């Protein structure tokens, strides 16, 4: 479930200033907006694919996943870049830039992970695999990259140890883990001999990943709320 740590290795430009600054904060309402827009983005992508091109994940997985990541890309990058660490030293555009940079790198790592786990590598699956990896990249690495930048310590803490610290990190960590774990479970029906079209790579894995991602988003909202409440209690 954790191709991500490899990705950290690659994205590490310098294990630079391990900014010990306080973790960025996010209010429950903002977290709710992020979650809602991500969910709405997914819904929009499905709606566009379905009504505009009359395709869905089963009939044309490649293009549908393409729509998903195309719609999610601006939403995720633009929203998460607002909660970047050290907003004073780091410009908004820079955060957007590193978010964009993380898209292909994360896709590569996700793709390698999927291949290690048994994703087909034949040529006919290439577009599907590429689109799936880009989607997974948006679910997993891109938010982290926008917020955390290239801080190896933070990446390690969030992805290898699953110890998010602070509300924004919950919003990064839980959906990403949810997507990967959901994808892992989504792969299980694939060998069954039901001969349904959705058993093909990467359809059910995508369903699993999207489902896990949504669960992760909701859970992170809950955590953010809990966080805010406990801080509120502390302050008072």
């Amino acid at each position, binding site marked *: *479930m*954790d*191709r991500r*740590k*490899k990705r*950290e290795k690659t994205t590490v430009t310098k294990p630079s200033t391990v900014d010990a600054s306080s973790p960025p904060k996010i209010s429950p309402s903002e977290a709710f907006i992020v979650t809602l827009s991500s969910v709405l983005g997914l819904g929009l992508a499905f709606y566009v694919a379905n009504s505009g091109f009359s395709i869905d994940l089963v009939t044309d997985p490649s293009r549908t996943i393409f729509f998903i990541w195309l719609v999610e890309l601006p939403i995720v990058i633009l929203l998460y870049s607002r909660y970047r660490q050290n907003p004073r030293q780091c410009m908004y555009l820079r955060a957007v830039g590193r978010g964009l940079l993380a898209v292909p790198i994360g896709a590569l790592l996700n793709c390698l*992970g999927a*291949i*290690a*786990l*048994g994703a087909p590598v034949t040529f006919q699956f290439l577009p599907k695999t590429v689109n799936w990896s880009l989607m997974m990249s948006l679910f997993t690495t891109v938010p982290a990259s926008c917020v955390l930048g290239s801080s190896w310590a933070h990446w*390690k803490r969030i*992805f*290898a*140890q699953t110890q998010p610290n602070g509300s924004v990190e919950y919003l990064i960590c839980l959906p990403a883990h949810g997507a990967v774990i959901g994808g*892992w479970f989504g*792969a*299980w029906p694939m*060998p*069954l*001999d039901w001969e349904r079209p959705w058993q093909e790579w990467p359809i059910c894995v995508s369903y699993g990943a999207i489902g896990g991602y949504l669960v992760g988003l909701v859970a992170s909202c809950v955590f953010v709320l809990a966080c805010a409440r406990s801080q509120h209690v502390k302050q008072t």
Partner: protein
Amino acid sequence: MKEREIEGAARRRKITGKWGYTWHLWVTLLLHIAAIVLFTRGFLLTRTELPYYSNSSDVSESQCLYSSSHNNTTTSSWTKPAVNRLIIIVLDALRFDFVAPSTFFPESKHWMDKLKVLKEVVSKSPTSAKIFKAIADPPTTSLQRLKGLTTGGLPTFVDVGNSFGAPAIVEDNFLNQLVQSGKKVVMMGDDTWTQLFPHHFERSYPYPSFNVKDLDTVDNGCIEHLFPSLYEDDWDVLISHFLGVDHAGHIFGVDSTQMTEKLEQYNSILEKVIEVLEKESGPGRLHENTLLVVMGDHGQTLNGDHGGGGAEEVETAIFAMSVKKPPSSVPVEYDTSSCQLDLDGKNVCVSSMQQLDFAVTMSALLGIPFPYGSIGQVNPELYALGAGSWNLDVSQQLSESDIWIQNYANILCINSWQVKRYIDAYSASSAVGFSSDDLSRVASVYAQAENHWLHSTKKLRLDKRDIDALVPALKKQIESYFNFLRTVAELARSKWTEFDLRMMGAGIAIMSISLIFQVLAILRANSQDGATLASSGYAWFFSASAFAFFLLGMRAVSFLSNSFILEEGKVANFLLSTSGIVALRKSVVKGKLLKESVGFLLLSTFCRFGIEIGLSKQASTSAFMKEYTSWILNIASGLAVWNHAAEVVPILVLIILAFWLYKATSDIFFGWPRKIVVVCTILSYMLIIVHWITENNRYILAFMPESIGRIYIPRIVYAILLGQLLLLVFAQLFRGNSSDCKTNLVVKTTAMLSAWSSTVILLSGKQGPMVAFASIVGGYCIMRLCDIEDDAKNGPQRRLSIGPFPVMQWNLFATCLFFCSGHWCAFDGLHYGAAFIGFEEFMLVPQAIILTLDTYGFSIILPVFGLPFLVAMKYKADLGKHVLFTQLSQMYTTYGLITAIMTTFTIYCVTMHRRHLMVWGLFAPKFVFDVFGLLLTDVLICLASLYYFDQGKDAHNHN
């Protein structure tokens, strides 16, 4: 309290020496043996093949012959021959709905009504041609069905007496009786027939049946030889076995254009055959009295599968046509036919029969002795087709149907006598015979029928005046014989096709007890050891253990579905990669061993491709592995570069392995016996290289006789293995004077592994060195990764017991290697070719051992003997023998537990799916492989414990 327990345990161990560490391994072995024997008795139905044969003179022992005007013909033959020649056309996997008119079925599908000619013949002359729905008995695989058809018995999944590798039928059978009676048999088509009956055919034209993708070779071969043979008179029985429909079903399914084309092709072939027969049917012509039988050996599902007991699989068809028109039809009492108008408005009748009855009915028609082990009954309708040749005895003043009944009663008498003789002989000679209740029931039914025969029917027959009383008496007689034969068939089906649930339940219960026992053994060792478990490692230890058991559980549960069993290799690899990813995560946290964890992940990725290639072979051709023991040779075999690489790379890798072994052993101190072992292994590697070179290059063969390379080198390698093992046992007598117990363990393990490796590599063929290489790398990675939690700062004194995680990885990796080396859990996944490395002739015991070594070499033998490395690498310093051996014994228990859990789930799964249509095709082979693997693992663990724990006693004596 606890301390006292530990003390007590330590004292006990002091007394019992190494048995203190290993006694539970032996108990586990015994429990497993008991469980498996019980379960197998209930599940894997076995039947003993009897070595008896029917003789034409036997029949005089029965009371059936009556000394009247008929006796001049019947002294030397069982029945009067009714047909002279027999043509059997077998269409493999012929579904019943291919033959019967579509109006018999609720819905008309487009694969129906393709064999039009059969229906036309039947509707034109209903007395001389018939269509039967033939019910086959599971297992519905071609080999078992052909065996059942010819022996008239119920072949089970395991027929005791079946010879390994060569499936020739040794039981009495229809073809054997034909040959004994001097009939000549010609065969064309599926080469399974020549495997089953190597010496029975006058002429045969076998075509290889293993290439499922090839729809036409076998069929074209059949056609090529069938039509010329029809005009020849040098045969009495002609068998032509077409495979196209079976292959089309396997590849494209029933609902496909290929299938329709095949059926249309058969239709035209059959049209021509019938045309020829009719042309030659005149008096004195070739086919004056010929019977044509067109039949399927079994059916198939819409996907083309067969093997189980589903309705689609067991329902096949028999079409029979007598060239000589029989005068009468069967009396209505014995007519099972039901008639329907077909689409063209013609009346077509379809009867029904058991495939079990085929052998005996054909024997009766041809007038040869019935096969000894046949338990079928002479089918009245099929038998009636031969009625045309009976010379009607006008003097008897009987109607045709009365004569028919008289004849039939007589045949049934012989039939019943023969079946009774078989049942008696079987229960007398088989270890697992019928129960005495069943036997006495059968005997009483038979005695009743026999009484009736002796006291009323026979008298009435001799006394020709009372004709009116004769016919009802005969009918009653036939009814009582039917009753007897039905009873026997029921009994035989319950014995050979039904499971004994009580036995299976007992087996499952004992298996579950053994699991509990193993868990308790592990916990006990933990509690003795647990005091030293450091708290900081706790979290990782337990989360890793939980994760290991989660993966284990996923794998075990996956066995409950046939699809996951089919793709077991991929599932195992998926879990292995997952565990690799988790290990990588951990190593990122710890910031060390990154190289090993990435390497492990890469290795599992490579394994994945190996497994996929293996699986594609499994899907495409069933008998592929018999031809090529190593799949590596066959990837892209078109490329010249690849061919060269395939020859050179294994040799290079083997040289690297030899070099490694040399390097690894040169810097540790080895006692001289073990030094010799390692040197011998390197010598074996060199011999293997020579063996491969001589195999490929023909010009080298000019310098030395071929047999040296092919026969003697492998034998030398086997001999070296034996010598090495003896030497290792011998070396046990010398106490290694290296004081360090840990080094001693490493040395022993290395020596043991190197001894086995050469033979295993030789048997695996050219892929062997690569797999060996992979297993070394994988083993090394697992070994290193298992001390990921050990922080140097904690000092050498701190130790953690090795959790189940590395052991589970070890086990998963071994499973992956099994699939990687081109095996799978089915009997066609065995590399029969490997059994003949070093042997020209068939010898059961050595070749069975070699086949076991090939199949389980990489997946059980090497991993089990290599397990001590995990312990040895874990502890940097020598902590004393007690710690080391406690750990080792705990690890062996864990390994055994993991294997046992897998096997237990396989057992649950075959129990649940015992009525599944894939039970014989998929679940039973998986069961056999797993159970055999479990026993082998247990035995090897016990042997390894004898080998590795041997110094324990000494240690305590010193202390």
